[in-house]
Structures are given as C-alpha cells and as structure tokens.
C-alpha cells in the first residue's frame, strides 16, 4: 500500500534525522520525502510517501511518529481529497532538428523550458508524481542527460467529498 503522510514538526536540527531514523529502524521504505517551512513560524511540514504491507503497519507507523517529542501532528491523507505536487528538472538531448517535436510533446504537460544549450534543453515540470512519471517516459527516447526530482508535497483540499446518500432515482 502506498501511503501519503504529512507530519508537522518543530523546526529544529536533527528532526528529519529522527523521523527517517525511526522509519529505518522499523523497516519502512520511503519512496519520497520533502520538508519545508509551513505557515507557522518555527514549524515545518514533511510529506512522505511510504510503502506498507497492511493497515496495522500503517497504524504503528503513525503512532510511532506521533510519539516523537518534536512531532506536533501526523496525518495519513492518502484516502482524502488532496493536492499533491512534485517538481522535476529534466535535461533532455535536443538537437535543433528535434526541438520543435519535443516542444510539442511536452506542451500538454505544461512543462517549461528553463535552460537551453546547443544540444540540450532543460525542462521543468510540476504535478502529481504520476504526471511526472508520464512526462519522463515520454522524453526518455530522446535521451535524458540528467534528472532531478523533488519528491511530493501535499495537503488536503478545502472541500472533502462527503459520503452523501445516493440520490438518483435510477438506483
């Protein structure tokens, strides 16, 4: 199971180490982790994507994280309506004759060119990790010289789907 977990922590040195150390000790494999300042001064927000086998393991993970003194809040937002974004920088082999072709391919992804040289162009793309994957797959045939991804950051949407009763008269 792939879970998206957000953790609000006190912004202190060593906190990231504490959290990742805990995951390592309990054998959780992190797919991605991002950390940055939050809206509150002195507080940071971490988002991590982690793979777990079952509900009990995820519950244990959340409880262990919650136990840390520097951790203020832990949320598993996987099953919520969420906004999730990742940024990738991709340096693609792009000789002049192929450039317009590549540019047309990347357009639906709303990727932008942020640097270009004689034979290489660097694209920036943001979106959900799946979109980034799709973008990378698409430009791979041209030759990727360098790739750098930030990992996903996320939080819940303002409006959550409610389990409203089925109103259709057809069902």
């Amino acid at each position, binding site marked *: 199971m792939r879970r998206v977990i957000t953790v609000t*922590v*006190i912004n202190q040195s*060593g906190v990231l*180490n*504490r959290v990742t*150390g*805990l995951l390592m*000790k309990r054998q959780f494999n992190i797919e991605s982790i991002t950390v940055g300042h939050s809206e509150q001064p002195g507080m940071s927000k971490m988002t991590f994507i982690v793979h777990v086998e079952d509900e*009990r393991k995820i*519950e*244990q993970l959340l*409880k*262990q994280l*919650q*136990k*840390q*003194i*520097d*951790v*203020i809040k832990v949320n598993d937002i996987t099953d919520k309506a969420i906004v999730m974004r990742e940024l990738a920088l991709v340096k693609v082999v792009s000789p002049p004759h192929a450039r317009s072709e590549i540019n047309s391919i990347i357009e639906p992804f709303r990727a932008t060119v942020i640097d270009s040289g004689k034979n290489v162009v660097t694209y920036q793309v943001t979106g959900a990790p799946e979109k980034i994957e799709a973008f990378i797959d698409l430009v791979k045939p041209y030759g990727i010289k360098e790739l750098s991804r930030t990992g996903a950051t996320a939080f819940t949407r303002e409006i959550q789907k409610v389990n409203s009763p089925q109103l259709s008269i057809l069902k």
Partner: protein
Amino acid sequence: MEMTPKSQDEKQNNQPMDGSAVLIQGLKDQGVEVIFGYPGGAVLPIYDALYKDPIPHVLARHEQGAIHAAEGYARVSGKPGVVIATSGPGATNLVTGITDAMMDSLPLVVFTGQVASTVIGTDAFQEADIIGITQPITKHNYQVRDVADLPRIIKEAFHIASTGRRGPVVVDIPKNVATEIFVTKEERTSEVNLPGYQPTTTPNYLQIQKAAEAIRFARKPLILAGAGVLHGQAMEELKTLVETKRIPITNTLLGLGCIAGNHELFLGMAGMHGTYTANMAISECDLLINVGARFDDRLTGNLESFAPHAKVIHIDIDPAEIGKNVPTEIPIVADSKEALQALLNQEFNVPDTEEWLAYLRGMQEEAPLWYNIDEHEFLPQEAIQMIHRITEGDAIVTTDVGQHQMWAAQYYSLNNPDFWVTSGGLGTMGFGFPAAIGAQIAKPDERVVAIVGDGGFQMTAQELSLLQEMRIPVKVVILNNGALGMVRQWQETFYDERYSQSLIPVQPDFVKLAEAYDLKGYRITKKEDAEQIFREALLSDEPVLIDCRVKMLENVYPMVAPGKGLQEMIGVKSK
C-alpha cells in the same frame, strides 16, 4: 553513604552563572539527590561546579557501571536516575545502559560532555556523535547549543524522562557551553511547554464502560500485569480488582512484584519460562486484561496461537504499544492507576469465576514448577529458595539475564513491589550487580541481593570497589556454573550439545577477588554447607560476595521453545 541534604542556598535569578553552575542548580531544583558518573576532559567544568556546590556523587569504575546503578536507583526509587559522563568514550560506554533503560521504560537523565561547539564535526579528540548514536535508543535527546537554553532543557529532560511512558533522555553539553557565562533570563520554576508531548493519562470513559461490560460477560477472565502497574503505582487498585472480581492474575517478567508472589489468585509468571498454569490460562482464557505490559515476544511466544479464544483489553500509557503485536478489541490509553480506578468505579456484576479458578488451581497442583534434586550437587533452584527463606522474601533482588534470572523469577517469590530489578527487554549481562548498588542507594535500609551468573558478573565486577569505598552492604550471590548457562542450555537443546564458546573452564578465584577489594568473600562448594554460609553472609550488615558453585548442566524448565506457542511448553512435569 552520606547524603548531604539539598543545598539551601537558593541562587537568585538574573545573577551571572556559567553553564556548569546552571546545570548543578538545575539538578538541585529537580530534587536530584545523587549523581552516578565518571569525570573526563569534556565535563571538567561540570565537575568543578560540583566541587563548589556538591550533590552526592557515585564514582563508578566504568560508565556502564554508573548507568546501570542509575537504572537500579530509578527502578527502586521511582525517581529519574541522573548520570554524567564525558564526551566520546565516556558517552559511548553508556549506550548499553541507555538502551536497557529505553527497553524497560526506566527514567534516566543522562548528561554527556561534548567537545567545544567550535570543533564539533572535526573528529576532535574524544568526539563522538552521541546525539546521532542515541537517537534510536532514547525517548528524546538534546544537544545544548546556547547556554541560555540550558535551564529550559534541564526541565524538559526531567519532565520527559519521568512522565508518560518513562525513558532515558540524553543531554549533550559542549565544553564551551559549560563554561559560558550568562544571566538567567527565565524563571527556573516556569512550566514546561512541549506542544508535541502531551501524554494521555486519563482513560476514555466509553472504553472503560466497554471493558467493564466485557468483564461482566467473561467466563474465564485473566489479568496479565506488566511493569506499567509498578510504574503507575497501581498495585492497590490491581489487587482490589483481582480480589473483588475474583480474576486470576499472571505477570510478565518485569511485572513481578506488583502482586504478592503468594497471593492465592496469582498463577506465577507467564512466557518463555513462565509457569505451565499461567501459560495455559492465557491459551484458554476468554478475556485477557493486559495492564501495562507490551506483549513482548518472550511473553507471547508464537503470536499466531497467542490467547486464541480471548477478547483483549489493553491498558497502556503508550498508544503505540496497543495493537503493535496483538490485536486489541478494547484499547485504553491511560495511566494504569487512573484506568484501574475508573474501572473499579464502574458498577458491574462480579462474574462467577469459581469454576475457572478451581480448574486453574487444579492445574497448579498437577503441574507445579519442579526440579530433580541431585544427591551430590547443589542446584541453583535450591540456592534461590534458600535465599528466599533466609531473607523471608523481603530483599530487593537484582539480576542480569540468563538462567539465574529465570530461576530467580521462578523461585524468589516477592512480597513487595519495586523489589525486583532485572534487565528484561534488552537482556543485559553485567546489569544486576551495579543495579544493586543503585537500588541500595535508593533504599539504604533494605537488604539488597544481586543474584548474578559467573558470566555476567565478570562484565561489571570492577564495581566491587564501590561496595568497599561507600560501605554499600549489597550481597552479591554468584550462581557459578562455570558456563554461560542459558547459551549452554540452548546449545544443548537446539544445537545438539555443541557447546561453542559457552563453557568457562578457567574462572578467577572470586573469593580472592572480593578480598582484593577488601570485602568478605564466601564460597559454597558443598550443599550441606550452603544454608549456614548463606545465613551468615546474607544476614550480615557488610557487603559480601558469595561464590555459590552450582550444578553446571542444570536447565531452566518449563520452557516455550522459540517460535512455539504458549500451549506447547516443554519440560512440564505432572505429578
């Protein structure tokens, strides 16, 4: 040992002090009555401050001895044990004790010296990344970067160590922070403010109601009590629950003592070397009420077949323990005392358990703990029973890990709570003897007996110095079987008697060793002499060492083999 009373010279706030003086003052504010430690380069300023403004200090002969003594002190007194060690090797020598305290939820506040901030990270002389090293083995740790943070950090460290699920906290102090001068800005008495740390102590009322309801409908209820009962001082409430509702009770290794060993509803310890009746009661009960135990694998055996018929109520102050190993129907996150009080306040009918009790009593009579008396050799079980008889079950008993520990758990039936000091979770050889020193310092008027093996004792034997120097009347009983007994037993049982590196044919002369430290040493070689020697040694007011030679090939039974279920005990003998 002379304990000077708490210093009365209350220093005023807003007076310039250096970091070391702030630390010593902070310790006094916390009511620290004794420090266990070992000086060194990086903590010289702290020791200098201690010279000017003394708190009684126990100079162990190795940092491991200091921290195990602090654990023994914490276990018996219920107060945090305080340890000071220098940077680098001093700090790394504490690692075993810190882990041991973490596993057994003992409150410790450990101050380590660190090289000066300016050279941290340069591999300076006696530098070790003790924050990185101890992060996974502490409840929390701090490195003090600014002397102005020190008063707050000291308060937080003691608060974290001694509340909620207790545990060790490390505070790493760079040498320059210890010497920096600053004017205390904050009130030393101000409240601790930790938004990320709010332990739940009061139980959820609905869950308590559910628990009461479950007890009401149980036919075969069973209480499993762990160290959480002792840490929460919930012994009275537990006893009331057991007696008024007539529910049988078993203990984990660390929970021993929370009910008197001879209580009529006590089934003995459960788990790998628990009693047959206790383990069968777990296997057959329909309601298991776990109070403050964490379902350790040495207790549960194979989880697949653990308590297969039981609905589980789990009371624990640490929510992460609930459901970790055993699925729980009724989780109650709370302090054990508050939870049991809330449960006792519920009006509910007493389940009729007499049939269940009679069944268990029959089993106890049918399959009690047993051993075969040897005509020539003295058995360790006999030794423990003899110690029990002579001390009337009233001594504080400390142990290491291994065969002697299990025999002590089985045969030293405790009358008092907080009189059992053992290394449970980590299973630390070398723990028992220094822990006995700490226990004796906590309770100078009680008789303290360290029951240790010949292997473990040799890991921290240098602390014999303290017995002499401080006139600490600990009685060290070495159950000497010339082997690493439990290792040897496992090799016998699971490795076809291939005794790889578990026999110790060459031993020091332990009596002479005691004499080298100017202590009285006894040796028991013949079982006929045992009673008289034990009586003389254990009842003396002096520190003594007793080298008690016991049968080498004796095994601890009954036993749940690793990976097996509790119902598959081996070495059960029925009458």
